[in-house]
């Protein structure tokens, strides 16, 4: 099969025009143009928040935000990468915190200044309902703050756009840690197993196994019986666990919405 030659498009990067093939991500286009990135490139897969990018397109007045590794470059894009967004966080001692409704407000009182403009949500490259989780934090709803903010990659774009100087991702981080530590129930199985191990359980069996001949070890390996893979009505059904009204993936990611807009 012959490789089709992609069309060249014009990207304006930090004020200069570059001809780049269409179909590249913004990050790949910047590199194609000759830049060797030091800042602005991390995981290159949408997990780390190293590549926040601000751009506008052609004559449009609208300012967009995106992750350079997860967004296709477009003709007439005029863009710049943000090395990082300086976001102040508070120090706290986890063991000394209490999961009280006003705990987040104590550390981050500026969330009370939220003017509900929703700019943070519109700016979020992850499609997180950022304003909703700030509002939830304000109401003292730690669980909702934690679940709504869960997919946050700490790129900081929200905070760079906020008129009230709210530092969103540390708010989400604090809420998730309080939720994980104090509100999510602890696993009894885990606690039991840790005590067993502390009492020396499994040590003898382990020592025996470690000293088996390779041949005998292979026999033991082949004799393993597999636990069945779980199905629709299993206790581990992900939806049953996550099936709260708090859907972590918002409307922007809804396939129906995508199909109906033809995007």
């Amino acid at each position, binding site marked *: 099969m012959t490789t089709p030659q992609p069309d060249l498009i014009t990207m304006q990067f930090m004020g200069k025009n570059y001809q780049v093939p269409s179909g590249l991500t913004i990050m790949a286009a910047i590199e194609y143009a000759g830049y060797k990135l030091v800042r602005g490139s991390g995981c290159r897969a949408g997990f780390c928040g190293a590549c926040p990018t601000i751009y506008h397109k052609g004559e449009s007045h609208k300012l967009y935000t995106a992750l350079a590794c997860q967004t296709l470059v477009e003709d007439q894009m005029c863009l710049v990468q943000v090395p990082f967004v300086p976001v102040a966080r508070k120090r706290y001692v986890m063991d000394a915190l209490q999961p009280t409704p006003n705990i987040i407000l104590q550390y981050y009182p500026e969330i009370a200044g939220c003017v509900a403009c929703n700019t943070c949500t519109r700016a979020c490259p992850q499609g997180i309902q950022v304003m909703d989780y700030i509002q939830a934090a304000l109401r003292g709803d730690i669980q909702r703050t934690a679940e709504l903010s869960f997919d946050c990659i700490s790129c900081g774009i929200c905070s760079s756009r906020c008129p009230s100087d709210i530092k969103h991702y540390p708010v989400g981080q604090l809420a998730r840690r309080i939720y994980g530590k104090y509100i999510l129930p602890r696993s009894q199985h885990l606690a039991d197993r840790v005590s067993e191990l502390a009492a020396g359980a499994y040590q003898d069996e382990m020592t025996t196994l470690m000293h088996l001949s390779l041949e005998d070890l292979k026999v033991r*390996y082949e004799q393993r019986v597999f636990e069945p893979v779980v199905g629709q009505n299993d206790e581990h059904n992900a939806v049953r666990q996550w099936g709260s009204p708090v859907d972590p993936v918002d409307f922007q990611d809804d396939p129906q919405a995508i199909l109906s807009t033809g995007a």
Partner: protein
Amino acid sequence: MELINGYPAYMRESIVKVEQTRPARLYATFPAMSLDERKVLLTHFHPDFKEDQKRPLAFGPSQGMFINHELADLLEARPLIPSHLDVSRVDYEVDVLIIGGGGAGTVAALWSVEAGIDPQRILIATKLRHGDSNSTMAQGGIQAADRPTDSPVMHYLDAMGGGHFTNRPELVQALVMDAPGIIQWHESLGVMYDKDAEGNFVVHPGGGTSRNRMHSARDYTGLEIMRVIRDEARNRAIPVIEFAPAIELLMDDHSHVAGAVLLNLETRRYRIVKAHATILATGGLGRLHMQQYPTTNHYGATADGLVLAYRVGAHLTDLDAIQYHPTGAAFPAQMAGLLITEKVRGLGAQPVNRNGDMFVFPLEPRDVEASAFIRECYERELGITTPLGMRGIWLDAPMVDILHGPGTIQTALPAMFRMYQRFGIDMTRDPILVFPTLHYQNGGIVADAHGATTVPGLFVAGEVMGGIHGKNRLMGNSLLDFNVFGKRAGIAAAAYARQTTPGNLTLAHIDAYEQMLRAAGVDRDRTAPRLLPDYRGREALERYLDIPL
């Protein structure tokens, strides 16, 4: 090219076949392979067995190890700095220097503090940002045998067999016996694991595991662990220098490792760190793109730690075995090589060929599964070729929602769903095209169960350490590995730091290394460590002028 909901028409024709075979496949399972069948498949199709792509390492303590040219080129390379560089002016003097700000380094720092080291006497130096690491990108989960139906003994068997019984038993023992304690530590830090209303973990199987032992946090498991431990490191005010990779280790006049030379990537100014104990936690090597494979790894995964450790005389192991994750994205091109978590198969999605037929048990150990995909595409020629010429097989993602109920993909795999949606594909409706991608450095630096290498003063943890996984790592054992051995190395380094005082700093070892290079007669134009890969366009480089500014 015109795309219909993300795929060109000829791929759509194959997707129709996948849809046709789906009802019959739903509750059917392709049989798993025996150990002998695995061996035949691996030797014929796994990239590690392509002899022309590898060569024996020319010199040093691991001379003769049969490794990929890309890695040998870095180990057989000159240092970036001369041995007469002035190292007498010390910029930072610390008890514990940690090189690498990913999972292993951060865990090590936290446990050095727990072991009584003043946080201000610790320094984390990292090449990119604190947290820029493969740890952050790990999606599927972390293994720990904590359910009544499971035991550390079964975990041990699974890990040993997955590694083809080449793992070092004492390291696997540490891995599986420490695992429940690590998860409990995470609970106490506030890691948001997937749990049911009673607090039981939601668990999934992984390739090669006999129990459903994978603890996850949606498909952001690594991100969730990394951001919590990073947050805790910030609470403890542990100093971190970002964009400052180590470019050489320092030794003292007793031949102990005693710190490192750091490079400020932006000013190119170097800094000298004198340390009582040094922990290398530099991660892996995916960005070397062995055999031109794409990679799942982060931008800084260039094997720097192996290079630095080899120069001070550390032994290496199992670097002949590189892990190719079976399911890297093969289409669209913008996603090529990106990780499609094993959890997708753990939730029931089957790999099928272009006719919609199953051809392998979905959860074989990773090297076996990857080899089966390669065989399907290149021997049986039953893969799909993308418009850019890459081959792949289908991973029938919509099965997840059929088996577990609508909405499962969006709730349990939001990162995957989001990534495909960004590039125009709805994985709740259509299968996704996958092919093996360079994923993990199975081997690494030889160390004991406390991360101590054969060189006094040098500890290792995380992907840079070898022996835990033997020739092949199982899913969920790397998130576990950096926690277990980060903790052990942090504690051991703290103890070592208290009883040792470094002498005068020297770079004499790189003179000795250059002599070995000369004696071996290898090409002396290359330098290492590599630090960052280079993806600049050919057209741009053709007119590049290397002039001082």
